[in-house]
């Protein structure tokens, strides 16, 4: 891994932290028309995000043990980008359905949060442990790498929270902001894959050249 790839991985982890909290914050906005803005709305949203992140860490860690590569890493981002889209396109219908079937707005909001945010947040949660796997080359430095990664992704979360709530909601529709997150995640995933392919090609070239010399 070159320092360029490492920088990309940190940047991707930053962006995923940014998106996770941006989406979580907008979750309150999305649920309010159907389930109100009482404190239990945030209870539901935070519960679901924490739960899915915890599963995401577990799954991402497991996944990183087999053929870890920048391409697979990029695919996680693309997958996350796609699973965020139902929030934009189907949330009204889904919440309408939940609203008519569940009278108690606590459980209504919990189910709605599950349906809308569980899957994408699991996938976004997979990114952190996978990043550690790609970045660590020396077990002596694994703690340092993990620390740096948490720093970058949590900093992303902090910025995602403040920028979304202070500025983005003043300028854009909720759906447009989420589409923006989805697009960013997808493009970054693609970038990781392209970079991997080009590194691979360059690597193949040098190997071929050196074997030709030999």
């Amino acid at each position, binding site marked *: 891994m070159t320092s360029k790839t490492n920088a990309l991985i940190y940047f991707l982890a930053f962006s995923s932290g940014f998106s996770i909290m941006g989406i979580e914050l907008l979750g309150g*906005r999305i649920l309010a*028309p159907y389930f109100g803005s*009482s404190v239990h709305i945030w209870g539901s949203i935070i519960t679901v995000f924490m739960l899915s992140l915890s599963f995401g860490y577990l799954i991402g860690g497991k996944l990183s043990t087999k053929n870890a590569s920048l391409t697979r890493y990029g695919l996680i981002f693309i997958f996350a980008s796609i699973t965020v889209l139902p929030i934009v396109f189907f949330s009204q219908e889904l919440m309408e359905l939940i609203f008519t079937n569940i009278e108690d707005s606590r459980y209504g909001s919990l189910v709605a949060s599950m349906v809308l945010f569980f899957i994408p947040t699991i996938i976004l949660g997979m990114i952190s442990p996978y990043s550690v796997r790609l970045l660590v080359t020396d077990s002596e430095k694994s703690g340092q790498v993990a620390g740096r990664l948490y720093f970058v992704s949590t900093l992303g979360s902090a910025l995602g929270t403040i920028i979304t709530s202070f500025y983005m909601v003043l300028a854009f529709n909720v759906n447009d902001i989420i589409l923006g997150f989805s697009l960013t995640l997808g493009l970054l995933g693609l970038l990781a894959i392209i970079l991997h392919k080009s590194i691979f090609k360059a690597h193949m070239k040098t190997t071929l050249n050196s074997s030709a010399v030999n």
Partner: protein
Amino acid sequence: MFKYLSLIALILLPTLSSAKVIHSERSLYRNIIVNEEGNQRCLKFNTKSSKTNQSCVFKDDPNKLVFNYTKLVFSSLLMIDDPKKVLIIGLGGGTLSNTIHQIYPNAYIDNVEIDPAVTKVARDYFGFIENEKITSVEQDGRIFIKRAKLKKQQYDWIILDAFNGDYIPEHLLTKEFFEETKSILTSKGIISANTFSSSKLYNHESATYHDVFGDFINVSNQKNSNRIILAGYTKQPNKETINARVQKLIPLLKPFNIDIEGISKNMKPTKDNIDWPVDTRVLTDQYSPANLLNL
């Protein structure tokens, strides 16, 4: 230094001693304070400053309304015949509900309040009346109205009074919410909203009401920052109708210290009098930064 401190103490002491806090609690949503000052008992949210007074009553005459805005709400009665089913979103001290019940003892009144502690304080300290005709539900106003729509309930007078001076529940100030509210309004009904918007939000709020209801009426007196919006009527009543209603209401509203004749002169329809830029962005569930626009 000490000199200044004692000076400050001297200034503060009389105000502190004359306002007596008789109840205070921290609810899920806010601090609730009930205090008494002279002849008034007031419900306050969050701080002791008088800006956040939510509801006040005169101790010697609880029927008399203290606040101007509460009186202005009754301009709604110039727009409709006697109301039979009333919905109030935001209970406060229960003053509106009590007053309407005394004017129209046969009307059904549903009160919706998100904070159980407010309902309790209304009962314990402000004589909030509940009986077979008057209910109070502890729920978010948006959810109540959505459920009422599902159950096909309708009201002929809907009062939106869920805003306080410091905070606006943003999901109660969107195009979609107003459309839902409109859907539970009878064809001859009226919606009255008590709002505090200033500057930028004033424009957005007006544009949103206009988008859903077409022309509406602003009721305010220059003295304070809030206004009552009357919306949802299909035809603006003519002068004769309004005058006839004024004459009918004068004796009914007098015990409550409501000068309906004076109020009728402060009603400004937006017809031919749009006082916001026409390209103002309408607030929707997708775009509702109401509190940020009201800074």
